[in-house]
């Protein structure tokens, strides 16, 4: 899975994107966050306040409970502030 980060999340993790082989047990966006947090302390800080996170799976806005299924790119970012 291609993981991409933006704004405050990107800065907290330290990279804009990375490729990760997700274990079988990671089925949803939320699972993925939990797994990453287990992997590295940086993720814990970046994902501390889940209410302040938004997600896009293959460039479509999704909720935390959405299944990853065949998706190839998961984006994790703070609420958007465009316009």
């Amino acid at each position, binding site marked *: 899975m291609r993981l991409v980060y*933006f704004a405050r999340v990107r800065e907290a993790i330290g990279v804009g994107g990375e490729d990760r082989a997700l274990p079988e047990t990671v089925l949803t966006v939320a699972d993925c966050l939990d797994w990453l947090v287990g992997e590295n302390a940086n993720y814990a800080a970046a994902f501390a306040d889940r209410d302040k996170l938004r997600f896009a799976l293959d*460039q479509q806005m999704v909720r935390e409970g959405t299944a990853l299924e065949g998706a190839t790119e998961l984006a994790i970012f703070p609420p958007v*502030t*465009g316009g």
Partner: protein
Amino acid sequence: MIRVELTDTAFDGAAALARLALLRGGAVASFTGIARDDGGVTAIELEHYPAMTKASLDALVKEAVTRWSLLGCILIHRVGVVAIGEAIVLVGTAASHRAEALEACAYLIDRLKTDAPFWKKEHRIDGSALWVEAKASDDLRAGKWANPD
């Protein structure tokens, strides 16, 4: 006539809007969002999600054109650093009558504020740079468009 554009340089909103006025509609509405200094801000930087941004704006415009049978629609959004006083976003809508043009214009700016993957960073005089926090009021405004009235 539909024009959705991301640009990293200042754009001529007037020229863009002038083209909407040529579509023989009776009504053209517009909204311009301008980089504002509410105390100590020197510039506003827009980060965005290239693979998704344009597609999300295209989808919003397509929805507005269909829902309000627009004759034309323009959506131009800046990326990168925007100087104070410069336009960050321009939304323009053309329709036969004013209700469609006005409502579609408000819809587009409200929805893009909660759906389009942009993030604003305020650069301040003291050299610091702060991410702008999303406002709950924005989610509220976007919500009211949920069910077509």
